[in-house]
């Protein structure tokens, strides 16, 4: 978090941000479930200028073997940014940042997955960022939980996530790239709307207790909104099926 260069004004006198949003307004969010053929579950997400694909494989044999847990499945997430997703080309392969993000996303997802149903297996979640514009970890996590549901993995709930922060002395929802670069605080958070459980949270920068309070309020409201978009994506995945719930009670008889 560096100080605001004098030539960039992140919020104007009317409280309008660089991209035309109000302080508590989110960028447009679109999610599509089931976009890949080979993966067991997948989701494509566009959030502002962020473009992210998430895929799930599993439960499947756990590699490396020594990570196997005889009592439950492990959730292994790999978050990666494609080399051209950022303004300066990023060298392919994991760096310290992506390894940390992968770890905290794995942990957040492991909380919602009923891992005890699948001993000795791994549920592998891959997040690829095609285009990055601040907030890719929350975008990745939001897409990943949709992909998990699409893969038919039993889970407590979907996991919406968003970043809140501070720019020009004001609390803002869903930071864009400029606010992320020149703002004074960033707080990504994932929260299950129904229970209020916080599954991922980080913060860097400088905020007062009161400001954090306001930021968390914004985040809570936004997570509810994101949650609805996630559910809508899953609903549309089976739109052709449109309410054909159990039209005939098929039996499991062997042919």
């Amino acid at each position, binding site marked *: 978090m560096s100080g605001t260069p004098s030539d960039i004004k992140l919020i104007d006198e009317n409280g309008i941000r660089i991209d035309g949003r109000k302080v508590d307004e989110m960028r447009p969010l679109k999610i599509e479930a089931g976009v890949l053929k080979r993966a067991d579950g997948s989701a494509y997400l566009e959030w502002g200028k962020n473009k992210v694909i998430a895929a799930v494989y*599993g439960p499947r044999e756990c590699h490396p073997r020594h990570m196997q847990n005889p009592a439950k499945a492990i959730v292994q997430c790999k978050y990666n940014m494609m080399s051209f997703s950022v303004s300066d080309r990023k060298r392919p392969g994991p760096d310290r940042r992506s390894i940390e993000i992968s770890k905290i996303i794995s942990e957040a997802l492991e909380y919602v997955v009923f891992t005890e149903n*699948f001993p*000795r297996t791994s549920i592998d979640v891959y997040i690829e960022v095609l285009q990055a514009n601040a907030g890719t970890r929350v975008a990745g996590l939001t897409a990943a939980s949709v992909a998990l549901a699409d893969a*038919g993995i039993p*889970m407590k709930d979907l996991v919406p996530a968003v970043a809140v922060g501070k720019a020009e002395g004001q609390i803002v929802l869903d930071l864009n790239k400029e606010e992320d670069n020149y703002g004074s605080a960033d707080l990504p958070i994932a929260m299950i709307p129904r229970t209020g459980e916080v599954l991922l949270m980080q913060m860097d920068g400088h905020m007062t207790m009161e400001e954090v309070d306001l930021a968390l309020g914004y985040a809570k409201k936004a997570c509810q909104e994101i949650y609805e978009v996630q559910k809508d994506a899953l609903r549309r995945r089976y739109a052709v099926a449109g309410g054909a719930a159990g039209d005939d009670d*098929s039996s499991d008889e062997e*042919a």
Partner: protein
Amino acid sequence: MPGDLLDGDKLRPGAGTYVSDGKIYAALLGIKTVKSNYINIIPMGGRYIPCVGDSVIGEVEDIGPSNWLIDINAPHPAPLHVNEVPWRVEFGDTARYMNVGDVILAKILMVDETMRFQVTLKDQGLRKLQDGQIVEISPSKVPRVIGKSGSMIQMIKGYTNCRIFVGQNGRIWLDGEVDDIMHAIKAIQMIEQDAHSFGLTERVKEYLESVTQQTAAGSE
């Protein structure tokens, strides 16, 4: 959808659900059904998880001196021990009977709490499969392909004259004339694609009627 509250007054939580604070919630993306006081979610997707007694189509993926390792499209492969085959196999002689890449119609013999499985070939109709073709569908769509009391699969068999085995693990084996196999596969793919839509049976029937008449006309 995962996390959805299921209005299950007086109902008990069944498959694909969980209980939190005394209320029943969905754990899966799927369709809600109620069966004998239990509320269940029938999944829309997901991997095959073996149950004892399931008929499955497996592929030999490795051979040991006294067993074969069978890929059954589950999270772990299932061993098939020489005692569980209808032949007398000497120690170290396993490869003479079945080799890597061979396909079998087997039954799940055992599942333990750490998801270790075993399969058997010792039951009526179980055997090594030869010729024909294998197609794979999502295991959650297997009941649709079979249909109510086997009606769907009987219809496909009837129109195409194919022999068909549907494994609970989402693998389907078909044998017959090449064109008939192709038509049957197309019908199965139609079912998988539109598994939960209205009028599916009619559409599959229409398709099978059109292609079987076509070939009948073509062969004249």
